[in-house]
């Protein structure tokens, strides 16, 4: 397979057939974050900072790498651009620091 005629990082979603990569090949690793999946959510996890012990179990189980952490590391919120609202973090939290509620837009 051959050339992405432009660097994929410069390609936008409205790329035409001349510039798109051959066969859908993606010549660039770590690009899943460009695909926002937050709109798939119907239930939303709510973080209660006061109850959180920063055990980071939620970070380990999140299938979408949507738990933000600080360098310490400590829990630092949720990436709602990618969180699909699966609720795994809520289920695994032993301290009631994550609620799971209907998302009202």
């Amino acid at each position, binding site marked *: 397979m051959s050339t992405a005629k432009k660097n994929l990082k410069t390609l936008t979603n409205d790329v035409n*057939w001349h510039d798109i990569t051959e066969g859908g090949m993606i010549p660039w690793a770590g690009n899943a974050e460009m695909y926002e999946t937050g709109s798939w959510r119907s239930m939303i996890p709510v973080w209660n900072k006061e109850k959180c012990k920063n055990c980071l179990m939620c970070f380990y189980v999140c299938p979408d790498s949507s738990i933000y952490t600080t360098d310490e590391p400590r829990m630092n919120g949720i990436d709602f651009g990618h969180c699909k609202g699966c609720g795994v973090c809520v289920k695994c939290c032993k301290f009631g620091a994550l609620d799971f509620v209907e998302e009202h837009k």
Partner: protein
Amino acid sequence: MAIRERMSGNEAFAVAMKQINPAVVAAFPITPSTEVPQYFSTYVADGQVDTEFVAVESEHSAMSACIGAQAAGGRAMTATSANGLALMWECLYIAAASRLPVVLACVNRTLSGPLNIHNDHSDSMGARDSGWIQLYSENNQEAYDNMLMANRIGEDKSVNLPVMVCQDGFITSHAIENIDLLEDDLAKAFVGDYTPEYHLLNKETPIAVGPLDHFTHCFEHKRQQAQAMMNAQKVILEVSAEFEKLTGRKYGLYEEYVPKGAEDAEVCVVLLNSTAGTAKYVADYYAAEGKKVAILKPRVYRPFPVTELAAALAKYKVVCIMDKADSFNAAGGPLFTDVTSALYACNVFGPKVINYIYGLGGRDVRTTDIETVFDEVLEIAKTGKVKSVFNYLGVRE
């Protein structure tokens, strides 16, 4: 100096593959192509090639392994026939759509059913819209030459498509004829190295192959794939010109055979592969009797040479297209519909056209059968009357 040899069409395929020395050959035996991987596996066992030979459990796996190997960055080749090609079905499309220039030796055999091991073109004709380049070969020499050119064509940066090289099962695959082979070093130099810009084993530039492709981008990929097939024609001609310089053997998109004395022939018969040889033989002795028939044998069936064939056929009063496969569509064989649609698209309305379906299931096509066709087209040229557009040759009525 070429090497003068004698061998079957299958061995010719295998020898070309030996000289190409691909990274991977994955194949499953099926008559009449079995000899190709059989010969090749002896080259592997004897250390004459560096190839990883994968003895897969089916043709679906054979093509899947080829796709994986080619995506990984190596040349991958396979051989098959009939139902083996049918079992590769979804993988053929994936190889083409993923733009992987796999090369397949197709030894044409009747697709079941009824179960039959003999030659017709129902296998490769079924794959005519799979996105593969298809080259057809009249004899062992053309099979060998086409195979040596296949990688160069498919791997061109403007193409990146898989290539299927076809020849007639048993008729040429098992018939031993004289052949001119290139010396190994010349063949290797001609084929060259495979250097894909992106491949899976390049850890510096990690890639994903075959990702999900929905309505936002899939159409653009299909359009780009269609362009690659259009681009292939120029590349085929360039590679063939270079091959001619090396060997003296000239290949184009098609071969127009006009016997001596038949230069002003008003009728032309269009057909593929080995039966073109029989037709040339009959055309020769017909010309000697003053009955003038020209033969046109497409070599490149995909991409279909629309304007070139229409231009070549425009001068004839009658064109008979012979198909060694039926489409069961009540509208003629695949070559017939492609040729007639090319004529119409190019505003060529002069020639009267008829179709003969012939040789199905390996039914022998004799010189007397060809004479039947020639007599029919000569009669149409004389009277201007077409009795029947869709015809079957050599079937018991």
